């Protein structure tokens, strides 16, 4: 096809689309790419105004090489999404130098689409979505502009020629495309990844980590980022049961706790047997923010209700794949009974009794002395609680550094200032030093209700660590030493417990809190419908609409729907209904003919109104006046002049007359 040189207007729009696309990725691009893109745009403008020459191919080649080298030096050899996007942008930035013809600009426009789409790899908020759609409209306008034959206000001054306004055209096309897009979105099956991609984003994810050194959780305590959302399908458990277990740490190296012992993971979900009437089952769904890890969050003794979620022997839920995007799973938890096990395996008891061979002698001596006084585990625990209560232990988010080799000693007997991690760690140490298997559990404590939408949020500042100890014949039992020291932490949440330390996100103003609730609710619905609409949710919706069907049936029904919607749409577009439609007069004539034929009068399609009347009069002379009246009505509208169309009242009158006549004729026929 003929390639057309671009008009001024198209070039301006092209530049605008390019800049907007660039702006979208601005904060994740190295500066030199942005400068290069702007430079190339300016060069192109220079060419347009005849100030600069078009670059020679060798210069273009050199620029491409330079771009590759720059990417290599900026990102090194590691492949990340950022480096890939940068590479794409670098190529994209050089493209304007080549754009002269229409076909070149298409390539640029398509690259714009691709790049604004890739924005969603980094940002997933509703506002980001709107922003991308807005830019898409600008790009669509550009695409339309380059196809217009004459741009308005062209340099030739052809003002008299009007064209469609490109942005309204773009908007209308977008709106027309929207229903089909929505349909496809809700209905198209979500495929599993076609190949495994392990290109991580280099943004760090804030959250728990699989090792706990004192102070780490305190850092989280200052972050108000969302960890996950939860929707309870049964009664919301009381705060004392809102311990979200994520990790069980068994190994202590003298300074930090980590996970060494790898318990077995069971991937087949079993069903719960109701053990006793005391059991309380809680059902809930968790919508997890991506944390790039495999562990999941659950309450009490949990059973997963989602495929690819396993239950490890230490009672945690584990995902088969690391969670890189939002992930939803449902769980049933038994909150009354701890995980029931009669005995620990040799390996497990070794792991849960491990302490470093040296160090913390004071603590060990203290524990042994106490254990001699209180030989039963329960009494020993009571004694420890008294010890923590009786001393000036202080709960704070900024406990200061513990710098001696014997951190437990230093904490228990000197500083006595700590966060949950300190209390949990030292309690486990004390337990283990007298031969009671114990472990640190890390997760979150508490939920925050969103009153607008029916769900609860758990934020990073809900992060918590507590302890589980082994009772022979009973199983693992939860103990929270933080509660001994700062009961308000457990009862009222972190904000109350460390009010002095909170500065950033206190929500005392009610209206601010309500706005935050509204925003959160909106975000929640957004997540629920846009981000995590796949698999289960999709199946639920489709079953709701089409009823429960087998997969094949469902696919067939959907295909049927899709094609019939498409076919109806196309039919409407392509049919020329107007030209085929009969005028009101013609329809009346057809009605008249039909009625007469029904009464047994011989009428041919070519018979005129006059002939029809004559035939009718012959058939029944007594109705002559009626027939003539009808004839006159027809003649007036059909033959007098083209302007004398029937009015609505005339038409109704005529119809009545015809029907009446038909009745009379039929009566006579009988």
């Amino acid at each position, binding site marked *: *096809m*003929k390639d057309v040189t671009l008009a001024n207007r198209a070039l301006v729009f092209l530049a605008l689309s390019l800049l907007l696309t660039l702006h979208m990725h601005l904060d994740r691009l190295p500066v030199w790419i942005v400068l290069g893109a702007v430079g190339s745009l300016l060069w192109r403008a220079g060419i347009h105004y005849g100030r600069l020459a078009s670059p020679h191919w060798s210069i273009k080649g050199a620029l491409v090489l330079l771009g590759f080298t720059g990417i290599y030096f900026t990102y090194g050899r590691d492949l990340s999404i950022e480096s890939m996007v940068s590479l794409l942008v670098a190529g994209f930035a050089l493209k304007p130098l080549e754009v002269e013809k*229409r*076909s070149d600009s*298409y*390539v640029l426009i*398509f690259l714009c*689409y*691709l790049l604004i*789409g*890739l924005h*969603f*790899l980094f940002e*997933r908020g509703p506002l980001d*979505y709107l922003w*991308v759609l807005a830019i*898409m409209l600008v790009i669509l306008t550009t*695409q*339309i502009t*380059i*196809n*217009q*034959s*004459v741009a308005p206000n062209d340099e030739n001054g052809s003002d008299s*020629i*009007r*064209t*469609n306004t*490109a942005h309204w*055209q773009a908007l209308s*096309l*977008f709106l*027309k*495309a*929207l229903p*089909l*897009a929505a349909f*496809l*979105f809700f209905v*198209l099956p*979500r*495929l*599993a*990844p*076609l*190949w495994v*991609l392990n290109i991580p984003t280099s943004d760090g994810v804030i959250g728990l980590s699989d090792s706990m050194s004192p102070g780490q959780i305190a850092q989280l305590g200052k972050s108000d980022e969302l960890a996950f959302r939860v929707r309870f399908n049964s009664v919301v458990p009381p705060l004392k049961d809102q311990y979200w277990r994520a990790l069980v740490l068994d190994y202590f190296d003298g300074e930090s706790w980590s996970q060494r012992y790898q318990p077995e993971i069971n991937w087949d979900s079993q069903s719960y047997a109701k053990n006793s009437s005391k059991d309380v089952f809680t059902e809930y769904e968790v919508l997890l923010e991506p944390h790039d890890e495999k562990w999941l969050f659950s309450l009490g003794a949990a059973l997963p209700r989602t495929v690819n979620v396993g239950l490890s022997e230490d009672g945690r839920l584990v995902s088969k794949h690391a969670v*890189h*995007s939002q992930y939803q799973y449902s769980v049933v938890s038994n909150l009354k009974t701890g995980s029931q096990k009669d005995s620990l395996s040799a390996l497990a008891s070794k792991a849960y009794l491990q302490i470093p061979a040296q160090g913390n002698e004071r603590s060990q001596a203290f524990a042994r002395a106490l254990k001699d006084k209180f030989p039963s585990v329960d009494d020993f625990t009571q004694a420890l609680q008294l010890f923590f209560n009786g001393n000036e232990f202080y709960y704070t988010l900024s406990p200061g550094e513990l710098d001696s080799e014997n951190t437990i000693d230093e904490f228990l007997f000197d500083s006595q200032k700590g966060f949950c991690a300190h209390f949990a760690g030292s309690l486990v140490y004390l337990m283990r030093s007298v031969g009671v298997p114990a472990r640190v559990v890390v997760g979150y404590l508490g939920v925050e209700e969103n009153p607008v939408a029916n769900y609860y949020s758990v934020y990073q500042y809900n992060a918590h660590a507590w302890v589980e100890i082994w009772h022979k014949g009973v199983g693992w039992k939860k103990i929270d030493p933080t509660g001994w020291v700062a009961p308000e932490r457990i009862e009222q949440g972190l904000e109350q417990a460390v009010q002095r330390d909170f500065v950033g996100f206190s929500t005392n103003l009610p209206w601010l809190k309500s706005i935050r609730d509204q925003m959160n609710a909106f975000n929640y619905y957004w997540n629920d419908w*846009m*981000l*995590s*609409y*796949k698999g289960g949710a999709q199946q639920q919706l489709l079953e709701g609409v089409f009823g429960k069907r087998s997969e094949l049936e469902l696919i067939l029904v959907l295909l049927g729907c899709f094609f019939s919607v498409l076919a109806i*749409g*196309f039919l409407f*577009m*392509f*049919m*020329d209904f107007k030209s085929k439609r009969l005028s009101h007069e013609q329809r009346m004539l057809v009605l008249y003919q039909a009625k007469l034929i029904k009464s047994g009068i011989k009428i041919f399609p070519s018979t005129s109104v006059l002939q029809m009347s004559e035939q009718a009069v012959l058939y029944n002379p007594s109705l002559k006046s009626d027939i003539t009246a009808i004839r006159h009505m027809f003649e007036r509208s059909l033959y007098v002049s083209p302007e004398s169309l029937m009015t609505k009242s005339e038409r109704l009158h005529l119809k009545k007359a015809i029907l009446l006549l038909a009745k009379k004729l039929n009566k006579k026929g009988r």
Partner: protein
Amino acid sequence: MKSLNIQKTKGSVKEKIKKRYHSWLGEWLDRRSPASKSIKLTQKRIYIIPSKMGFLFLALTALMFVNGVNYQNNLIFSFSVLLMSIFITSIVVTFQNMAGLVITAKHGDPVFSGNTTMLHLVMEHSAKKIKDGLMLGFNREKAAVLTPIESRLATQLEFKAQARGRLAVPRLSIFSVYPVGLFTCWTWIKLDFEGVVYPSPVFTPYQYVGQTEAGIEAAQQVINRGVDDFRGFRVYQNGDSLKHVAWRQYAKTNQLLTKEFEQPQAQGHWLDWHALPGYKIEHRLQILCGWVVRSHEENREYGLSLPGLSIPSGRGDAHQQACLTALALHGVDAHINAAVS
């Protein structure tokens, strides 16, 4: 050498197939949409397929889709679905931009066979939206871009006239990729343009048949004296030969004047079919045409005599046109009549 030969034959086979295809296509199109004066573009006539850029766009959509699936990213997924939907919707929009257009053939300027003429046509529609981005031509490579059509557009198209006779214009193509360039929408229309193609003039000396001595003499005189017999100036009138415009006077006075010459009073300047025995019909017509053209240029009075038709002596543009049209249509309608009866 051998391979070259083979290639040649291959090429010719390909050419043959192409030719076959084109003639078959032409016949099919003729059957489907016979020539007429005015054509309304409806879904029967409009064809639509993805353009090259449309396929590129599909590839882009597929890429986005794979991205969305591989990252399990619903937003990218939804974006790719949106692009797909825009692609599908653009079929309808592209079609609508062309549908409903009524193309009416007006006339073609008279022209000598082998020369380029202007075809006049009018495009109208009653849609609310302006029809934009339309291109018109005999083939895609040499199509003219039409200005946006709000409701009516009178436009012209260059056309190289072929054989003499009534103007016969091959199928025209109207096509567009508007608005988004993802689909090419086109139609083939065969339009009846009013107009004649004159024979291409062949210039040879005059020959006369069956005339009086005086007539020949007079004619001879004219030829001898030619345009030398200057009588005076008169104001230029439409239809005067440009050869007789007094350009020098025009330069001086800025007024167009025509030089007048003594007119030979000869009755018998007849351009006669029978003066050219032995020539083939077309060649005869071409020579006669040449004579008409030259007589007109020389501002003579002349008459034309063809079998079954004679145009009395006269001069001026209208007269010339009548003569040329007679030459152009010689035997054409008779031929049609014969074919009909």
